[in-house]
């Protein structure tokens, strides 16, 4: 049976030889993860900031909704988006099902609640005090909002990192919306599932190690970006 050593051996040879399939899957996974994280952050971070700033009646309800959305199984999210971009769905004409774009749409839907919720938590901690301090110095509401953002920047970056982490190892959405088509929508994660299905356990584990390496290197990069700040 498969040993971890087999897997490590496998992974090493795949990487050293720059196996074209593995390269294809890895680049695709990386691309999907980065783009999805980017888009989800563009939506989620300002949303989290705005929710934190305003106090309004439905605020607790919103937090509850966000937490619920975060707990959805990825397959459910995938099916939900599927119903929209499938050929007979509302956006079927776009032809995004079984394409990388379709996967990205699904991943963005998946992680935006997460990014929003973590941003909200990061900002809420300090936002009231920072906002008051800014206003007391004569800042406009907009300037104060910007200051809140700056003060919370490391927490916000943590939200982005959380989003990235969620996407990079994700299978449910990628499978349902991508279809795992080789050369088109096969990612590291869907390839791992396929290899497991086909009984190539060592190779699946090897791909897993490649995925781990990919995730680690990006996270190190994020840490580097975050590293400039003292603990808050």
């Amino acid at each position: 049976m498969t040993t971890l050593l087999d897997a490590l051996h496998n992974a090493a040879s795949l990487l050293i030889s720059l196996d074209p399939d593995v390269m294809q899957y890895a680049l695709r996974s990386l691309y999907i993860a980065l783009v999805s994280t980017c888009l989800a952050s563009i939506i989620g971070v300002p949303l989290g900031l705005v929710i934190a700033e305003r106090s309004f009646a439905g605020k607790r309800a919103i937090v509850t909704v966000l937490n619920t959305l975060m707990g959805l199984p990825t397959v459910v999210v995938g099916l939900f988006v599927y119903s929209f971009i499938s050929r007979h769905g509302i956006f079927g004409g776009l032809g995004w099902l079984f394409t990388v774009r379709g996967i990205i749409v699904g991943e963005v839907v998946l992680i935006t609640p997460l990014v929003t919720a973590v941003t909200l938590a990061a900002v809420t901690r300090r936002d009231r005090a920072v906002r008051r301090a800014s206003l007391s110095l004569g800042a406009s509401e907009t300037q104060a909002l910007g200051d809140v953002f700056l003060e919370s920047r490391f927490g916000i970056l943590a939200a982005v990192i959380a989003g990235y982490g969620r996407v990079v190892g994700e299978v449910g959405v990628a499978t349902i919306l991508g279809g795992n088509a080789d050369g088109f929508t096969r990612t590291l994660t869907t390839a791992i599932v396929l290899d497991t299905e086909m009984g190539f356990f060592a190779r699946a584990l090897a791909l897993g190690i490649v995925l781990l390496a990919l995730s680690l290197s990006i996270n190190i990069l994020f840490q580097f970006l975050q590293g400039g700040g003292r603990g808050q």
Partner: protein
Amino acid sequence: MTLLRLENVVQRHSARRGKGAIEALRVHDLDVKRGEVVSVVGPNGSGKSTLAETLAFMVRPSDGRVLLDGADPWAEGRALWARRRCPILLQETTLFSTSVLNNAAKGLRIRGVSRSDALVRARGALAQVKVEHLAERHAHQLSGGEQRRVALARLLALESDLLVLDEPMAGLDRESEEVMAQLVHTLHKDRGVTLVMATHNLRRAVALSTRIVTLVDGKLIPAMLDNLFFGFMRRTEAGFLFEQDGGWQHVFARSDLAEDRWEGVGPLEGGVQVGIPAGAFRVEPAGQGGSVFAGTVEAIRKERDAYRLHVCVGDGPVLRVDLALHTWAQTALTIGQRVELTLRAGSTLIMPMRQAPARACQSRGA
């Protein structure tokens, strides 16, 4: 000339969780004139911060008007302009996550001052509060007192002619407190800055202010009698704040206005009483030399920041004497000990003879 004015201002906190709306502030009228140093004193929770923030245009009044230089910024949609004219040192210190120097420059940068100019002025402000040596340090590494001084420097850099300070000296180490007090003095005397200070440190308020107003339960009040906590006197008015039965009571006398809430205090001619703030005494064991007040220590009670003695003088009254903690440590007094009390010059207050509370005062009337 009036710089700031509150007219019929009411501040309500919105209702939450079944409780009704709470009135945090109700001020019929309050003027702050140019060059004044006005201290707002009162117990915790009396609304001092609310008043300070209302004056600084941080919060819109639920009712009434706040006028700056005769204009009504809230009504005219110029709250931002007003806020910039009245920088406020908030009760809580929040420094930004950057260097001390950048913090000090923040107010200027908000107003669009160039970075280089702002940093120069900021450095000057830091020097005024004696923390210029900390300029390059990260703000959050400083001690509490140092952070508060930086917060003050942030305001000083703006070189505004009006400042509002909310508890500037509360909870500070001795050195920081000294620096702050010195600065308030300098701003007033040398630069004619108009200052409004909310504080519960009465001694400082007396020392630094040109005028003191008293706030209890959100209302400006006057009054006082036995167990005097605080009082003030002017040509035409006198007001006193005193503790009685665990609560706050007040008496106010004014010779030219009808006031519907004050208790029987007549015009200032006639009988008077002497009121002495509890902290104005010096206590020494008997035998040190001639003093009007020689008596026996009846009770000793340790309060939060002072020791409170009850000294029975002659045949009575019982005078309340507060001793600072470090003073107490130097003079070990015991119950039953004979002591002599001396007063600090200028600390005595003369007040109208007390009338029975139930009796309404004779036509106060204009």
